[in-house]
């Protein structure tokens, strides 16, 4: 046991530099990771799909996909993994790390960029660098599927309208016959520039292990 302990200690330190989590946080996340994958080495999609609280999430598929997306590992690779190790898991999680007081402005900008990138990847399911109308519709449909009163028609219409909004802000002088084929990353950044990404897209990673506090999970 001692050997593996030091091994993981070493690994942790490696990851601290890479992801910016504290050792404590990494330990906690590792515990959670093992809990999720049932003490195997790798995590597969079924593992995440089996999380009970996630079942009601309307964008569950997209989120799970994001974990297995190679683009989110920042290795300039495309495609997706079948299963991921703890390191990959941690990398994805690191997108949700909150900024600290010490974070400099440049770092914040970089963080923001990564977050936007993550979001973009989540929308862009086929990985062609563009969020097409089809892809966007899917998300909106998912979001609206909660409320039973709003049908698919409306969801599509909303997606269409939102898409047009993007098109109009980015390509102001579009001819009536032009076709806006999809939101690119730049456009995506452009639309979301007013959203306070830094202060919103974060999760509080506690130093304390809370995984066991949740009853029945």
């Amino acid at each position, binding site marked *: 046991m001692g050997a593996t302990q030091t091994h993981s200690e070493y690994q942790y330190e490696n990851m601290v530099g890479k992801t910016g989590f504290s050792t404590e946080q990494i330990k906690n996340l590792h515990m959670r990771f093992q809990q999720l994958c049932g003490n195997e080495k790798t995590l597969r999609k079924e593992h995440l799909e089996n*999380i009970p609280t996630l079942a009601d999430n309307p964008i569950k598929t997209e989120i799970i996909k994001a974990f297995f997306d190679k683009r989110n590992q920042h290795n300039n690779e495309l495609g997706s993994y079948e299963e991921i190790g703890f390191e990959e898991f941690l990398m994805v999680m690191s997108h949700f790390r909150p900024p600290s007081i010490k974070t400099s402005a440049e770092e914040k900008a970089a963080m923001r960029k990564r977050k936007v990138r993550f979001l973009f990847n989540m929308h862009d399911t086929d990985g062609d660098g563009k969020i097409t109308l089809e892809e966007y519709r899917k998300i909106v449909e998912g979001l609206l599927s909660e409320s039973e*009163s709003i049908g698919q028609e409306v969801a599509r219409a909303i997606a269409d309208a939102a898409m047009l909004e993007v098109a109009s802000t980015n390509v102001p002088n579009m001819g*009536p016959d032009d076709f806006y084929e999809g939101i690119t990353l730049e456009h995506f950044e452009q639309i979301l520039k007013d959203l306070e990404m830094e202060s919103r897209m974060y999760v509080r990673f506690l130093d304390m292990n809370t995984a066991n*506090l949740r009853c029945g999970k």
Partner: protein
Amino acid sequence: MAEQWRSALLLCLLMAASSLASTGTTAPASTGNDTEHGTGTINTLPIVTWKWHHVEVPYLESHHEHGGGHNATGIAIVSFKWHHVESPYLVAVWILVCFFGKLLIEANHKITNYIPESALLICFGFILGGIVWGADKVQTFKLTPTVFFFYLLPPIMLDTGYSMPNKLFFTNLGAILIHAVIGTVWNAATLGLSLWGCHQGGAMGNIEIGLLQYLLYGSLMAAVDPVAVIAVFEQVHVNEVLFILVFGESLLNDGVTVVLFNVFDAFVSLGGGAIDAKEIIKGIVSFFVVAFGGSLLGFVFGLLMSLLSRCTKNVQIIEPGFIFVLGYLSYLTAEMLSLSSILSVVFCGICCQKYMNSNMNENSIQTVRYAMKVFANGSETMIFVFLGISAIDKAIWVWNTGFILLTLLFILIYRFIGVFILTWMLNRYRLVPISFVDQIIMGYGGLRGAVAYGLAVNLNESKIKEKNLMVCTTLLVVYFTVILQGVTMKPLVQWLKVKRAEIAEITLIEKVQNKVFDHMLIAIEDISGQIGDNYMRNKWRNFEEKWMSRLLLKPSARKQQDHLYNVFHQLNLQDAMEYVKEGERRGSLEFIRNESAFVDFKKKLGEDYEEAMPDIMADMPSNDPVSTCRRDVLPTVSLEMHEQNMRGLREAEGINAHHLLDQHLYKGRKQHRYRYSRSHLDINQDENEVQEIFQRTMRSRLESFKSGKMGVAPPKTITKHTKREPQTKMPNGKNKPYHSGDEDFEFSEGDSASGYDTSFPTRVTYRAGAGIENPAFMPDLDPSSPLHIPPWLADAGMEVNPVAPSERAQVRTPGYLHRLSSLRTNARSGETAQDRDLPTPPPHRDDDHL
């Protein structure tokens, strides 16, 4: 709507306020003078002075005698009963004066850009106070605690609760609570102790204040005042987190202030010796009871209100009244149980806003919002004016340089220290730390206001010898913070480059993205196994959806709950508005040519015409037969607003659109009847402005089309006389629209003089050149009655309504004519078309739709 309630509340306010405000018999005189001077020129000599008190006693006596005499002999036709109306009259006049003051101040935006309104209102109060003083030599009007706490404060607090940004508030609740509770206790303790220390050191001279009294004084000065804070921060537009921190603190510290004040007040009464550990513990316990009890009470009232709003559908007129009455009751109940009344009413508002807004009818919601603002803004105005007036009173001014200056100094210093320490502690746990600049603004935003003054006046003079000194120092602190800090706040914010609030523009994509955020964060928390804010929020939301909504929302309202959809709906409504405006701006039907809008009405074709404009979107979720059209309908409207033309829906002409627009809007006119009844206000029950504009436009247009039909008569038949007339008048008409006036009369006379059997041809020649410039300016007449038929024309035996005279003058480009001609349809229209070389339009409008 809710007129009864408004007036009822106002009446209560008037009655009670007056009984307190007007004490002396000299009151009427001063009021009379005030109204004159306050509203008009202040510096000029009064030409007429109303010396009521000069004549009051003899006058009234004689009056009584007179009345008595008359009683014996006969009935007085006119009698002057000042005493009968005195109190409400005075209150009404004071309110009027305050409002006029606001009017004056707001008239000049150059000044309000630099000096906040609250400061100006206080200064206005100084002037009024000076006038009263000058007239009476004694201050007869001042802000009494009863008036303030019972009548002026509740509306403001209810409004803040009701329009509180809930999510923001609860996200920052931790920080707010820390500042409100610990910060206030800190302020109170340090101020009291420091002043006492200075007193011991001999800085104050010879005054009789003990330690406990200093602490009591500290506790009343500690609280940041919500009214003052809103007034100043509303005009500064700092970022929302900073705003909610200061504002939330000012709201929630009321619980603390009340407790501290009561506890120390009790301690002062008990005397220093009787205070033991037991009493202190009792004080601490009472804090929890007062604060949480107040909040809980508000919560209960809020739930009650929401429940009630489920079943007020049948009394829609008084529906908005419930919120005011119940809100006020929650305040009074808390006061009765000696709980924190401010917390109670604020939480009542916070808790019910969501449910009320979904349960109530659209009109009621607007009424509530508007009436809330009227009350709150009115009360705020009066508070500041009266704070100013209260200063001009010789009786309260006791000068003690040491005491006053030290108070000011300590308040500022300790506020800053407190803020820095607390935010330093908070920043260690906050994910988004509060920056140093923000902290400075938080410290500087510690404005004191009327609550402190109200409490100070409430002090018992028999126990606290130096009450007047305290009152006058409190007033000075209020002036200092509201005026000086208020004025310097804006430059400071600019100078420090504090992050400002962004103008929140709802774009659909942002809303979608926000929703994505929410779900994503919850998912990530789920996966990472953390219990975070999002987890708790999700739990609450689920609970809320499952239980609260089911209990408190109408079934129909529950369906409309999706925010994303709401934004979409709003955007669409906005589009419709823009669309109409644009059309009116252009003053013609041309705007309808815009293809993108066309679809909108196409959809309507498949449905009943009765539907009102805004309902186009409102009924979206329901399944309907023409949903195939709908897919196109929705985006295209939004598209219109953002001026996107890439939508490839190309239609040759808007003819069809004309047709449809015309059809169902003209039909819609039937709903638009004014009926008077006290309990029903059902003009445009389910329509709103948009539709009304449309209706008007279309109605007047159709009237013109009707008369256009008469264009059949060939111009050659017109006599020489009538021919000449139009030619001369045409150029005039361009600049000078007629208003059914004299010129019309002249023509008619000319017609009759010419011996022509009907007056039609004259009109026709006018019509020939007439495009409809802006029909919305047409007088809105009851369509059922013949329009604008002067008696002399009515005699001529016309079968069809003539056109409104003003339209004839609206001669513009013949280009419109071309388009209009398509609508000018009739059996006879064929001839017209030939005459004018216009294409024969299809018959668009059936007469049975009229």
